[in-house]
């Protein structure tokens, strides 16, 4: 692969006049796994100018994090840099001595990590860890202390002295990440590397952290390298972006241009597999990318995307594509800063988006038939060391045949507890009733009739956890068929094969163990299992959040298709607003165990909204680049063990009415047919307030 290291690899292009803050040149990295070197990076090149934010995107396993860590020469013990340079300020990081490297990390480069809870030493106070960052720069104890307090104020921590005195585990996730950012900025670095800095944080907290990163990096003028799998985040934050695939950057350019007019077949596929521009399942199916990402270490002599590319030609099979500049005559008219690693960028437009697919039919909710599932006055209170924690409070919900009810909410909202209460995995508090088809069903699950068990099944978030890893696929499906339908032997086997075929699993898949399947296939098996007894209701708990977007698209298509065919009702729990918009007919928004708003998907997305929903929707970074006014929420999500008085959202609500909201909890009120919310503010006022965006 060294033969075609193209002259433009450094990506300097238009920025040639300014020396780059970071220049990665032809980086090759391998991991030694079971004694064999396996290529992870196959020649990665990019550069970042001072003050510029550069993003690396790609699906898991493409090498984006490895690129970031290799740039700071922090690789796991089995990883090694085989080739290439990492130039910072005229120095090659790969050639530094231990002392130089240490000085480089102390003074010139900093990093923020994915999991802030793990990133700080659990046994030392926050203050000590932060002060250490300053004493390292030669400050005295006293100077370092005041610098530390100042640094915390800069990351918008209101009470820095108190936070300094805490241990990391006593802080919330958002707070922890602010402290880590404060630590990273302590040395006023020239280069800041952010590795999935908001993955695992709630949407409203994520938006806060991203704001902070944007403001602070602009203030300090450092170069930022941002690693994220969420394309929305990259678009919102990055000037330029590199799309990685199988250890190579396949496309690079200004983020708006790359996302609006992709020039590599992989980027095209990636973007099309996302539910964008408010598309719904009734309009069309999502586009998917066939095949899977090659395992690390696979030999890929020519184009890395060859096996999955719909426009691959004979040239692609024999010649490694160069990294070519693409002429772009867009609004900015800038050329020479867009590159693609493709032989045929001119044929990209041949990749048609499959809008011709048959629209999926959806049943209109029937007025005459009883709801397939109905929850009335359902509450769930956990006891933790003699403290009662209300996880669900007076939930009222109905689900009609063939309908998808989306349930969205942040952590602590009770959405998973709600699913468990429906299924009888958790018993509900006295007074609450779960009924199926008009008759009340008992909990726990074990006390339900076989018919009830058959009628409601579940698809879990993580197929690795949901499938017994020592059972074969056939055994997994067979057992469910036997238990749920009562048929045995040959007949059961026939049903298993029919079921598998229906979910497009081949007979070959049946004799494999889950570990031998890719993530998407595993989730397919889990769905097949849930459908083994022709259920009326399937509860899906974040079924695609562990999957890459291209696989997610296939799973969502499958779910939509099964529903259209079998009239199954779904309860679809998710935190992804794009996914829920695509799939759900109705949406319930939860906060601290209460349903704050419930209504048809269009009503929820078009408003008027409950102020919480409004904030949640504004917090989602969009891939489409549409301008949104962010509604900033004050404070943290309160603990369910200690909910605020009155309306539980009032302490964070930007529209709270003093003297009312903190006193009484509003009831769930219908504001228009089928659209209810739990808010004191009259609907006319909300419509008025939400018409002109709040200026803050």
């Amino acid at each position: 692969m060294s033969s075609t290291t193209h002259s433009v690899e450094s990506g300097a292009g238009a920025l040639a006049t300014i020396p780059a803050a970071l220049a990665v040149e032809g980086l090759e990295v391998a991991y030694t796994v079971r004694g064999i070197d396996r290529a992870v990076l196959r020649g990665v090149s990019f550069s970042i100018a001072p003050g510029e934010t550069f993003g690396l995107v790609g699906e898991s396993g493409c090498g984006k994090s490895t690129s970031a860590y290799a740039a700071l020469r922090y690789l796991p013990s089995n990883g090694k840099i085989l080739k290439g340079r990492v130039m910072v300020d005229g120095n090659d990081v790969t050639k530094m001595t231990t002392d130089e490297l240490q000085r480089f990390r102390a003074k010139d480069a900093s990093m923020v990590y994915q999991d802030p809870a793990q990133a700080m030493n659990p046994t030392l106070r926050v203050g000590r860890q932060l002060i250490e960052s300053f004493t390292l720069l030669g400050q005295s104890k006293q100077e370092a202390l005041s610098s530390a307090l100042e640094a915390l104020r800069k990351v918008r921590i209101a009470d820095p002295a108190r936070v300094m005195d805490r241990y990391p585990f006593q802080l919330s996730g958002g707070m922890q990440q602010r402290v880590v950012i404060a630590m990273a900025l302590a040395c006023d670095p020239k280069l800041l590397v952010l590795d999935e800095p908001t993955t695992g944080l709630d949407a409203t907290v994520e938006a806060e952290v991203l704001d902070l990163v944007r403001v602070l990096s602009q203030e300090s003028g450092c170069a930022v390298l941002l690693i994220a799998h969420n394309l929305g985040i990259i678009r919102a934050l990055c000037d330029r972006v590199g799309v990685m695939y199988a250890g190579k950057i396949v496309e690079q350019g200004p983020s708006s241009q790359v996302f609006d007019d992709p020039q590599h077949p992989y980027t095209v596929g990636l973007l099309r597999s996302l539910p964008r521009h408010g598309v719904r399942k009734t309009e069309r199916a999502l586009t998917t990318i066939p095949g899977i990402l090659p395992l690390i270490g696979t030999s890929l002599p020519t184009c890395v995307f060859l096996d999955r590319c719909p426009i691959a030609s004979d040239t692609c099979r024999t010649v490694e594509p160069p990294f070519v500049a693409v002429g772009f005559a867009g609004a900015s008219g800038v050329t020479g800063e867009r590159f693609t690693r493709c032989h045929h960028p001119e044929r990209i437009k041949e990749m048609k988006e499959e809008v011709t697919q048959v629209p999926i039919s959806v049943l209109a909710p029937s007025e005459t038939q009883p709801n397939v599932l109905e929850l009335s006055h359902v509450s769930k209170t956990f006891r933790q060391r003699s403290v009662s924690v209300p996880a669900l409070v007076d939930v009222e919900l109905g689900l009609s045949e063939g309908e998808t009810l989306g349930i969205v909410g942040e952590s602590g909202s009770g959405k998973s507890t709600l699913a468990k209460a429906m299924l009888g995995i958790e018993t509900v508090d006295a007074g609450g009733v779960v009924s199926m088809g008009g008759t009340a069903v008992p909990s726990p699950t074990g006390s339900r009739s076989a018919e009830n068990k058959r009628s409601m099944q579940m698809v879990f978030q993580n197929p690795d956890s949901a499938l017994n890893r020592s059972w074969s696929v056939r055994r997994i499906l067979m057992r469910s068929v036997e238990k749920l339908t009562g048929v045995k032997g040959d007949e059961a086997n026939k049903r298993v094969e029919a079921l598998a075929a229906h979910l497009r699993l081949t007979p070959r898949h049946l004799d494999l163990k889950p570990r031998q399947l890719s993530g998407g296939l595993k989730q397919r098996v889990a769905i097949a299992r849930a459908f083994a007894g022709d259920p009326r209701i399937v509860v899906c708990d974040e079924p695609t959040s562990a999957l890459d977007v291209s696989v997610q698209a296939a799973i969502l298509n499958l779910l939509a298709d099964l529903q259209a065919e079998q009239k199954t009702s779904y309860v679809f729990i998710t935190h992804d607003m794009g996914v829920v918009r695509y799939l759900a007919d109705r949406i319930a928004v939860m906060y601290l165990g209460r349903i704050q708003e419930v209504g048809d998907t269009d009503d929820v997305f078009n408003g008027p909204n409950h102020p919480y929903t409004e904030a949640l929707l504004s917090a989602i970074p969009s891939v489409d680049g549409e301008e949104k006014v962010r509604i900033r929420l004050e404070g943290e999500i309160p603990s369910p063990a200690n909910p605020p008085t009155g309306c539980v959202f009032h302490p964070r609500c930007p529209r709270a009415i003093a003297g009312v909201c903190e006193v009484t909890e509003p009831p769930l009120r219908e504001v228009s047919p089928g659209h209810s919310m739990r808010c004191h503010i009259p609907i006319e006022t909300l419509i008025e307030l939400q018409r002109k965006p709040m200026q803050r």
Partner: protein
Amino acid sequence: MQKFILQRLASILVTMWLLATIVFMLVNVLPGDVGRKVLGPFAPQEEVVAFNQRLGTDKPLVEQYAKSIKRIFTLDFGTSYQTKSAVSKIIFPALGRSAKLAVLAFVVTIPISIFAGIYAARRKDKFADRLIVNAGLASSSIPEFVTAAVLLALFAVQFKLGKAFANPPDGTSLVGQLKYLFLPALAMAVAYFGYIARMTRSGVINALSADYTRTATMKGLPKGKVMRSHILRNALAPTITVISVQIGYLIGGIIGVEKVFNYSGLGSTMLGAVGAKDVPVLQGAVLLVGLVYMVSTLLADLLIAYLNPRVRLDGK
């Protein structure tokens, strides 16, 4: 924190009671006459009866059980069948002598093995690491009496170093005692080396790969400082647990070592009691060992709570 200590103390009481019950059942598992068992088949019947009366072993089992439980909580273990003196007068001095041996062994082995563990972790998969790991494996898997016998053959006999009989004569100075206790203590030290070094190694390896270590390194802290202020504090908790648990297992090994070196500690006392079927002494000794084990694990937990604020502040 207070609640934590109180809970632990309560759990020690419960465990002691269970332990006493287990020992009681073991001793009384066979039906029959204790006096006959102890005095042998040729003793005259009236002596056996008198024996049973004196010790209360003619009473119903339930009554004997209640009495034996009461005894533990008053630390009065009854009288020895053999010497007719109070059990506590026998086992406490013996424990003191064994403790001397154990303390010496720990003083030798703890610093060396922790250092070896850290060194091995830093040189993971290198030659030094493999050497320490395998030496540790060997040292902890060989029974102590084997090590003791080999040390005896090598040092006391071939090199004339140390003493074959470890009991120092009365009135020997503390330093003078070292000469006597050195070889048996070394035999035990060798046995602990493996456990402690291997546990330290894996603790340090875990901490080395932890995210907070990455943060500290990426901050640009020098290696030594990362090790001292970030890694060790987190890495030593499992080591402390292992040391405390070893104090319980230690007693098994000490029996063999004391036998080889003819040392009159708790191990020899117990072995003697087994030979003479002196049940009260044996029972008392086992309970004492259990108590030592539990106090040491409690101390270890407190130390861990001190090192780890999460345990201290969350109570879990």
